[in-house]
């Protein structure tokens, strides 16, 4: 440690009992490590319970490649994984700028530390924005599906190329009186979510009229693909449909098992909240660097502590990326 201009709070007040520091580490840094241990256990609890649900429904779990296929500015192009790979690189890169900031802090280089901190904040903000876009696509859905009495999702494919078709491609418009119940239509507390674009009758009629559309069920065959029913089976299956599902929420989703969406919202949401808190902490530290707090204090340990948290957030994303998108 360089000669201190003024002793920091922790040097004066926290480690008492001599010069020997426990584990040869500063107080704040050690506590940050123990916070990280407990947070790592929280996240592993989430990811393991995701794995629990997945092994419980191992023969019908949604295939991530078919769910996350969007890339900005490439409409209708099937691009699985590229977007999350990009997000991973953004977060790893912001981790690098953070460790460069820590390194510049060790060299007592104020302007360089502030510059790298700034880049880290930008990286974190871009990542949170990307995650919001991912959520938007997930919630909005793409093709739509129907749900049966037993809560199973039926998806529609074209018979020729076995590609998904959207409900709007084949549903037949049936004149109907049913419209979304607004607050203005009745008593003030009676309202409902906006109705799907098509009613279940319209989908059923459209399905019966189009002989080149097949149904795909959630079950997975030996080769790892979802089972596609032939036309006769499909016609029998469509009778059990009771509900049109478009997009995803916590109760049902068009991709398959509702637990998939629940875990997606919960785990990526909890991670996104960590990134958001990290960005806020980084901004506070950034302004502290700018006004010279750490210059006066004589060391940049705070940058190192917030850096530990930031790398941990990156570390968690590495695991979320693997277990949600790759495996």
């Amino acid at each position: 440690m360089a000669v201190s201009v003024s002793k920091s709070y922790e040097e004066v007040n926290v480690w008492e009992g001599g010069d020997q520091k426990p584990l040869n580490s500063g107080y704040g840094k050690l506590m940050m490590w123990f916070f990280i241990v407990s947070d790592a256990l929280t996240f592993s609890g989430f990811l393991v319970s995701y794995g629990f649900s997945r092994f419980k429904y191992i023969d019908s779990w949604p295939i991530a490649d078919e769910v996350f296929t969007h890339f900005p500015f490439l409409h209708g192009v099937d691009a699985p994984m590229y977007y999350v790979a990009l997000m991973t690189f953004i977060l790893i890169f912001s981790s690098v700028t953070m460790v460069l900031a820590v390194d510049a802090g060790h060299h007592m280089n104020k302007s360089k530390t502030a510059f790298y901190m700034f880049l880290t904040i930008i990286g974190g903000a871009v990542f949170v924005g990307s995650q919001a876009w991912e959520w938007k696509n997930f919630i909005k859905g793409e093709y739509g599906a129907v749900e049966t009495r037993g809560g199973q999702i039926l998806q529609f494919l074209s018979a020729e190329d076995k590609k998904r078709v959207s409900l709007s491609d084949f549903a037949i418009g049936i004149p109907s009186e049913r419209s979304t119940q607004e607050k203005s239509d009745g008593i003030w507390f009676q309202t409902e979510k906006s109705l799907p674009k098509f009613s279940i009758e319209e989908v059923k009629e459209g399905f019966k009229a189009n002989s080149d559309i097949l149904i795909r069920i959630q079950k997975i065959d030996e080769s790892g693909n979802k089972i596609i029913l032939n036309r006769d089976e499909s016609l029998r299956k469509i009778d059990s449909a009771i509900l049109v599902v478009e997009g995803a929420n916590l109760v049902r989703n068009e991709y398959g098992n509702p637990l998939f969406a629940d875990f997606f919202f919960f785990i990526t949401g909890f991670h996104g909240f960590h990134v958001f808190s990290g960005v806020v902490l980084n901004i506070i530290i950034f302004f502290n660097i700018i006004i010279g707090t750490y210059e006066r204090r004589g060391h940049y340990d705070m940058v190192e502590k917030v850096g530990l948290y930031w790398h941990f957030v990156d570390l968690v994303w590495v695991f979320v990326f693997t277990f949600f998108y790759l495996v």
Partner: protein
Amino acid sequence: MSVGEHKLEIFRGLIKFKSNEQKIWGVLIFLSIVTIIEVALGIIKPDFLSAYFMRMKLLNWIFIILTIIKAYYITWDFMHMRDETSSLKNSVVLPLVILIPYLVFILFLEADYIFDVMFEGFVSWNF
């Protein structure tokens, strides 16, 4: 911590960097290569890796091992765990490597059991 206290070699001394900053870029390149391998495998999905080992595809085992390798280098080099005392290393890492596999073992065993119960036909699944 003052300047120059960093341990600068990775891969058990195979590569030694001249400065800490250089090591950061080196580790970034390594992590990027691993991520690119993961993404490429995830997109191509080679057929010979779809064999099963302990009820999971070989490809998934590769993904998990590569993830743990990435986690190691993030912790050891970005979080500077390499420069800490072994007692600090152990007090952070040991609780995790003991508790997490334990949790995984209990929950996955139970999930597999529930799957078997449902599969044996006590629940009508598809209607």
